[in-house]
């Protein structure tokens, strides 16, 4: 598992992120590990607040510098360690080798600049493209992400675009330098269902054409099933399950994943099944033992509230952080 020689695009290992609070450093991401291969899509799944965005921002080197810190772990991009790089070295990577799109298309574009400028600035920064060359390329990119009349729209300001169109512009910015890795942090959550579907199709199509690896972050099981090859499920700052998408859906090995699957609208039935009762614990009041035990149906007193489970391989390529993983018969989708 040394950096050089492995063919993984991104290797995150033992990542721990802490935020400064009145009561000291709070660990909001704890021992998170995963890899993404070239051209692969990894789905990062979990309820709001479980640490998905923090994990993504850590990979980008975009965590707030003074109020947060990476307490442990390593982040390697094509074998190169990113943790500990200076801001200036990181800025050479961002937008160039790794790009990110965000959850909030309405506020993520700069209102005071034309969209064309916002695309060409990234090309000028990393490729040294001339002003006119960058502008031409911006038109091509807008066209690529499906913006009608790209040649005219390139000179428009963000407020003249709808949410879905703004997210397309964000994608154009992110893909301008043809990065090896795209991080998409809930890119469709703020959009309505039809637009959501179009953006997902666009991302899948662009990935086919450009062949980049994708870290796709979402809390939506339905979206994950459409887009990702493999899935990492997070709960309360930790990875609780990790496997191929089929495995996770058909044979979940963690009670939390089973609960998320139960929330999906039933395939043929009319009823929507129950959500997971209870609340996600905050980083400062984590329960002892298994962090999921207060909400787990299968929890065993005297065991689950005492012993913290490790992320163990249940069978080849399938890991789960559950003390009873081998004993439980969990329900996938059927």
């Amino acid at each position, binding site marked *: 598992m040394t950096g050089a020689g492995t063919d993984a695009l991104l290797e995150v290992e033992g990542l721990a992120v802490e935020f400064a609070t009145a009561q000291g450093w709070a660990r909001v991401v704890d021992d998170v590990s995963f890899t993404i291969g070239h051209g692969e899509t990894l789905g990062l799944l979990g309820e709001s607040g479980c640490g998905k965005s923090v994990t993504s921002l850590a990979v980008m080197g975009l965590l707030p510098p003074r109020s947060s810190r990476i307490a442990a772990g390593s982040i390697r991009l094509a074998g190169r360690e990113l943790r500990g790089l200076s801001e200036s070295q990181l*800025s050479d990577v*961002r937008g160039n080798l790794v*790009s990110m799109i965000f959850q909030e298309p309405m506020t*993520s574009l*700069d*209102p*005071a600049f034309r969209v064309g400028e916002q695309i060409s*600035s990234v090309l000028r*920064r*990393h490729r040294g493209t001339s002003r006119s060359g960058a502008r031409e390329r911006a038109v091509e990119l807008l066209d690529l992400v499906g913006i009608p009349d790209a040649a005219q729209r390139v000179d428009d300001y963000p407020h003249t675009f709808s949410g879905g169109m703004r997210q397309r512009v964000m994608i154009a910015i992110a893909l301008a330098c043809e990065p090896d890795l795209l991080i998409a942090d809930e890119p469709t959550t703020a959009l309505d269902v039809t637009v959501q579907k179009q953006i997902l199709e666009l991302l899948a199509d662009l990935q086919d054409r450009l062949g980049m690896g994708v870290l796709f972050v979402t809390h939506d099981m339905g979206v994950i099933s459409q887009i990702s090859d493999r899935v990492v499920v997070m709960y309360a700052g930790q990875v609780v399950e990790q496997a191929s998408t089929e495995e996770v859906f058909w044979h979940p090995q963690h009670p939390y994943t089973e609960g998320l699957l139960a929330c999906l609208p039933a395939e043929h039935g009319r009823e929507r099944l129950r959500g997971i009762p209870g609340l996600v614990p905050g980083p400062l009041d984590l329960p002892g033992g298994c962090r999921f035990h207060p909400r787990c149906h299968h929890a065993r007193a005297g065991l689950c509230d005492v012993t913290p489970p490790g992320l163990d391989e249940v069978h080849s390529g399938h890991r789960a952080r559950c003390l009873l993983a081998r004993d439980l018969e969990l329900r996938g989708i059927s």
Partner: protein
Amino acid sequence: MIRMVARRLLALVPLVFLVTLLVWGLVLVIPGDQALAIAGDSATPEQVEAIREDLGLDDPVPVRYGRWLAAAVQGDLGTSLYTSYSVTDALADRLPVTLSLVFVSFALAVVVGTAIGMLAANQKGRLTDRLLTVTTSVGLAVPNFWLGLLLVTFFALKLEWFPSGGYVPFTEDPAGWLRSITLPAVTLATAVAAELARQMRASMSDVLERDFIRTHRAKGLRPATIVRRYALKNAAMPVITVAGLQIARLFGLATIVEIIFNLNGVGALAVDAVFDRDIPVIQGCVLLITVIVLLVNLVVDVSYGLVNPKVRAQ
């Protein structure tokens, strides 16, 4: 854009008209008899009456106003009651002094205030920010006559770097002009620079928290580029409005500074005219400054439109 400017210029016409009414109305409000003032204490009632006749002071108010307005439109603002110079000539003499003072001060205040505000916002909560905040509070609180005297004592009388007063026209001696204007401009600019620094700090720290800044960082743009190009344009919008209001304030405060530094500007002229009850001169000064302030506001609005695409689109 051009249509907007044209529309705004047209909108100024009724406003200027209103101002002329108010300015001219001074005659009716200010106590004292103009004819008596011109004639002097030793004049006979007949002489006073002759002057009154001559000036048309007994005509009905609208006629007198109309006569004044018609002349004013042609650039004739009457004659000083004391020096019997043309008011228009006197203003033309004095205006370059005041404009130099105000615009140099404004440029200084914008550059210094913006730089301080940007630096403080970037260092928010750290030592630099706190030191700058204290500095701007002092800058806001210090009375400018006191600051002016302090600067004169130190830089003019002690160090003799700058003259202690008087104005050198730019056309005569540009270097001398700069030396003559420096201390007055610093005096006048301090409070405005401090105000702009506070506004810029607030606006900039707000902008730096916004999502699109994170996007620029995610693009790999350098921090200096993000702050100076992108954040600054966004942060400038609210500050431009405040800056525009500050120009009007500068014209007001310029009067005190002109007197301290013995500069013969419009403000000093107006103060003398008030002591002398020299109504045509007062009218001319007020009208001129008001029109300038209105035009400046127009320029401010237009530049606001230049940085704000939502305004420009209209």
